[in-house]
């Protein structure tokens, strides 16, 4: 594809694209969303990722039912002689970390809680925090990004510098110290609820500049487009331009960014839980399970493998799916 013919003019390339799209339009006249959906369907890897994501969401929603059928309550102790060996420091009894019909993924060392149930319930925490934090970040990022890009001048300077400041902020350290001063009851929540709320707000708050910068850049370029100028010269108000002319064109980059933000948030949540700033015990979360497993991995490796796998699979699935969505919405994007 490096024929000298093509790199002489960009217009030619554009013409080729138009030509390629033209016949399709003649047949059905699809909307951009439909085109994107067709492209996504063609991407088998992204679809597989999407299926796993769907599966995980279902697991999170139906966690109580699944655990009811296949496991034990997630916080129930099974520290009797038959399940963990207290003489050997709480090593699970049996091969593969005590995996059996009763305990599908084995048991947690020392207290013998059902690993399967805890991994299933951990899905809830991971997804709730990741989704809500992403939504929070996207909301803030869109609002401030559009404002900065559309109004420009001093407003843009203030918002952009604020974003720079937040991007340079040591987020992890901040959250770690924040968690130690957060009261046990806040916003009508208590215990793990408070921690989940804090995680969502903080991860979201430190995530919005990433969205904000993209939205600002897009807005900057969009507002100079002819159609916006045309609307302005026809006397369209600010609100009309913002909501009817700009925002619809921002949906694609925002969607792409949000799908790619979720796996980042899952990892941040896991890292924070690993460091003890996540949900409070006994609530199960993957990061917290990993940090418990670090102490016992040599006697019960399976207890580390399952939450580790859960994080790995989830993040991979979201990333593959996110990449697919990006390719579908923005086929010209660099890859």
């Amino acid at each position: 594809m490096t024929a000298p013919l093509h790199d002489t003019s960009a217009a030619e390339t554009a013409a080729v694209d138009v030509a390629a799209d033209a016949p399709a339009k003649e047949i059905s006249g699809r909307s951009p969303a439909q085109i994107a959906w067709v492209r996504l369907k063609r991407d088998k890897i992204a679809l597989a990722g999407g299926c796993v994501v769907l599966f995980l969401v279902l697991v999170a929603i139906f966690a109580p039912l699944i655990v009811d059928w296949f496991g034990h309550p997630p916080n129930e102790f099974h520290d009797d002689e038959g399940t963990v060996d207290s003489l050997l420091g709480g090593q699970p009894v049996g091969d593969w970390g005590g995996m059996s019909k009763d305990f599908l993924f084995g048991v947690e060392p020392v207290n013998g809680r059902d690993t399967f149930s805890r991994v299933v319930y951990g899905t809830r925490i991971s997804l709730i925090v990741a989704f809500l934090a992403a939504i929070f970040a996207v909301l803030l990022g869109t609002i401030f990004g559009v404002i900065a890009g559309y109004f420009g001048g001093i407003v843009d300077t203030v918002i952009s510098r604020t974003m720079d400041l937040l991007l340079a902020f040591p987020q992890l350290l901040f959250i770690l110290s924040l968690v130690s001063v957060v009261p046990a009851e806040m916003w009508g929540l208590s215990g793990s609820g408070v921690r989940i709320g804090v995680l969502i707000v903080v991860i979201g708050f430190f995530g919005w500049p990433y969205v904000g910068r993209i939205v600002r850049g897009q807005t900057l370029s969009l507002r100079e487009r002819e159609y916006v100028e045309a609307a302005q010269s026809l006397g369209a108000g600010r609100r009309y331009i913002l909501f009817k002319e700009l925002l619809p064109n921002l949906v694609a980059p925002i969607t792409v960014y949000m799908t790619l933000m979720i796996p980042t948030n899952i990892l941040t949540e896991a890292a924070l839980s690993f460091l003890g700033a996540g949900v409070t015990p006994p609530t199960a979360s993957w990061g917290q399970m990993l940090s418990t497993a670090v102490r016992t991995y040599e006697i019960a490796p399976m207890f580390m493998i399952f939450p580790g796998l859960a994080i790995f699979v989830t993040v991979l699935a979201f990333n593959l799916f996110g990449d697919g969505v990006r390719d579908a919405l923005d086929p010209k994007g660099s890859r």
Partner: protein
Amino acid sequence: MTTHRTSKRRLAIGSAVAVAALLTTAGCGGGDDKEKKGSGPGYNAAVGKIANPSEKKGGTLKFIGTQDADSWDPQRGYYGFVWDYARFYTRQLITYKPAPGEGSQELVPDMATATAKISEGGKRYEYTLRDGLKWQDGKPITSKDIKYGIERIWAQDVLSGGPIYLKEVLDPKGEYKGPYKDKDPEKLGLKAIETPNDKTIVFKLPKPNGDFEQMLAMPAASPVPKDKDTGSRYGQKPFSSGPYQWVSYESNKSMVLTRNPHWKKSSDPVRKALPDKVTLTLITNSDEMDKRLIKGNYDVDLNATGVGQAGRVEALRKHKGNIDNPLTGFIRYAVFPQTVEPFNNIECRKAVIYGADKKSLQTARGGPQGGGDIATNMLPPVVKGSDPKYDPYGALENNGGPDTAKAKEALKKCGKPNGFETTIAVRNNKPVEVATAESLQASLSKIGIKANIAPYDGSQTPGIIGNPKVVKSKNYGIIIMGWGPDFPTGQGFSMPLVHSKYILNNGNNNYSMLNDPKIDAKFTEAEAELDENKAAEIYTEMNKMVSEKAVYLPFVFEKNIIWRSSRLTNVYTAHAYNGRYDYSALGVVK
């Protein structure tokens, strides 16, 4: 798209954490079967008796550890292992008897010819020094050096961190300002200690204290030569009065001690001083340390915090003969601040005590070997006057299980038949304590008590649970802690936990806010008692009074799994050193 790249990088770091966590598992499982089987004299061979008794001199005794001393300065060290190790290079007037287990609780003369000549109703202690006591440069150790060393405790502004018992007892009003601010040309201005001649030292107490000699047995009472005192830097290279002198030391890395040529066995009935050289290696990874110990590269874990989870299984399965499982003197417990509702009501406290599953708590602590014996009351067996059979709340009944019927009855009496909600405060940097909190939470939920776990920053302990206002405002109804004695008597263990004068606004240890003049009076009575057996009886009564208050839920009398290398000779664990080996007695085979 620069922003995009940034996000990928964040992702990469995150993945690296997850992957690293997964990878670490790859190194597990493969125990090295080629290692020679433990040729140790057997499981618990050094508990209560001497394993490999020997008088053979020579060789290098190799310590390994993961934690350096808070300070090697005898007046500044407070870590238990420092008190044990410091006897290589310091001597005291009196010290603990070089005998296994309980025998070590007895005090014997070290630099003194005999234990104190006590007169004036317990207010005057007189010692005479032995002949032939020498510093590492050959100069004689005089009573003035001892006085100067002890005076250094008063200089808390320069030499902070060490135990201040002697300062509190000899100069409760704080009249003396320490040797560095002393106007006396010889810097010996402390009036409570007199040195009529180089061989005699006299202590004058404003008020008798039956444990005074226990305080003199701490390394904080070691002599320091005034002309060698480098102030706050003294811990970098202490001047030796003991059998070994410092050759080199690099903090957090290594230390080498060799024989002090001027130390004579004839002047020291306590220390065996068998090895020619003592080395210490400090590393950061405790699992790695366990591996090296099991391999036989090193002899003793300096910190004696116990073989970790990973090494424990291998050690117990393949090298049981190299394992000792002594009591450490610590009690792990939960305490109920009476200022937090509903724990102002004794019946609600009893409900938690009865409702707790002690067996599960023991497992969470590490089981019968790694955790310890289920505790029955708040005086550990290493303290004179303790009685593990005294079990007022039936901790041992029902194989350590909860007594649900009694718990529900207590809840009814408390006026909360359906249970209540409370908060368990636990240090976030102590995973085992978090595990016990979860266990307690699980068993309490069965009797309707909903306990939320609040992990707090463990490094901020004195300002959080040590501050009664914070405890009340955060509603910490249950606090999980552990406690070990500074010296093995009722005063050394219980006083900071239950005496009303220890209720402090910050750095409080009397978390339950126990304020009972009758209990305080028992301490006054026991302190005035110079016969330690009679004092022990008073502490037994004190312990019963504390138990009846139901403010403590003891989990375990802590035990430790420690590694005894096959090279070690003359090994025994000592109650006086929290179940560590008596380091000064150790020797090696080659």
